[in-house]
């Protein structure tokens, strides 16, 4: 039987369909579940994905209201039991606001944030690459990736700059920095960082390694036609529809249930 994954849909979520498609391509049984759902679908899930968008219209602060949504009670409980949880873009903001990532504070008391971009909180929409910064064995979600894996993705956010107190940033750098922005060859350098993010951070993981928050969208580079160079090179529709680099993250996520 395929593992059951719930992709939560908050009011304002907008990336649920492409996220579902990428997960289904990795042999997962995926259900889109509204955050006000009263059925037991979420409670019986084996894992969760919080997709991108603008949950609750980013009211108060990106991810802040969703972090206190009743749906997150289920996610927090599941995360504490060790179930895999992945948050992408706005979903990553929700995970930081809920305190699940980096997980160094009390639940629902954030110790870090994906804050407005520098400069000027400007929305950035650019293609990027992220490099795996921890040993893959550190997390069941990442264990199928090679060391220092480089994954293509699309940045599409106005609030993706990691911000935290200096001592917390030191903790994050030591234990929780899962992905950093990089060049296509994996070179991590300041020019690759699109938003002023501290440590060049693109993705963080919790201590147990079962909760991953990543700002850029790998599901938007999951097929060749979504990749900025592969689409140009594709000569047939079959070539354009082959998997692209971003699918690797979902394949690794799926291996967590093996």
């Amino acid at each position, binding site marked *: 039987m395929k593992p059951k994954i719930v992709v939560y849909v908050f009011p304002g979520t907008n990336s649920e369909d492409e996220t579902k498609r990428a997960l289904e391509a990795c042999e997962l049984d995926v259900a889109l579940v509204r955050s006000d759902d009263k059925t037991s679908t979420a409670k019986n899930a084996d894992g969760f994905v919080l997709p991108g968008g603008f949950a609750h219209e980013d009211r*108060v602060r990106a991810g*802040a*209201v969703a972090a*206190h949504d009743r749906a997150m009670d289920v996610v927090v409980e599941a995360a504490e039991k060790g179930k895999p949880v992945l948050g992408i873009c706005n979903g990553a903001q929700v995970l930081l606001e809920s305190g699940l990532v980096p997980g160094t504070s009390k639940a*629902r008391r954030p*110790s*870090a*944030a994906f804050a407005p971009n520098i400069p000027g909180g400007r929305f950035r929409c650019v293609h990027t690459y992220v490099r795996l910064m921890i040993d893959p064995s550190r997390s069941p979600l990442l264990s199928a990736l090679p060391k220092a894996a480089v994954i293509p993705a699309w940045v599409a956010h106005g609030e993706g700059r990691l*911000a935290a107190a200096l001592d*917390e940033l030191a903790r994050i750098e030591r234990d929780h920095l899962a992905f950093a922005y990089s060049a296509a060859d994996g070179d991590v350098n300041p020019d690759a960082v699109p938003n002023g993010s501290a440590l060049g951070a693109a993705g963080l993981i919790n201590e147990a390694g079962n909760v991953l928050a990543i700002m850029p969208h790998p599901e938007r580079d999951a097929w060749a036609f979504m990749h900025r160079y592969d689409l140009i090179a594709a000569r047939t529709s079959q070539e354009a529809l082959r998997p692209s680099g971003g699918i690797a993250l979902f394949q690794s996520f799926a291996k967590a249930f093996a």
Partner: protein
Amino acid sequence: MIERAFEIRLAIPDNEAYTALATLQRLGVGCDGIARADIHVFGVEDDVDAGELEAQLKTIATIFNPNKHRMRTREEPRPKAGEVWISSTEVPPVHERVTIGGVQLRGVRTAWRATSWRLLDGAGKDVAQPILDQAVETLLCNPAFQRAIKA
């Protein structure tokens, strides 16, 4: 240089305030109403008149729409009792000139923004400070990049 503050409030129902109220009530914060406003604080040269600056701000469509906003000059560039301002922890840089929404503001050297929050009881009065503090801690402020400015 002196600081001048302006408050921009919605004259139509404030959905963001309503969402914040519903969330705070779910978190057990004792309040029955909420009032929210955008605050713009400017460091200005001494000869800049507040009325002149307010008139300029009212021409900036990205922050003020006369059909749905009301603006007023605050007496002091700080919150009053019962109010908290949530702002970025970053220190605003000093500029040669400040431009907002394509409008260059005469005599303005620094600019920063905050969100003003007031929590109200059933009688429409400000709640006690510990309740406001609880709201700040649970929802309104993420100390990783924001500061709560109190009266």
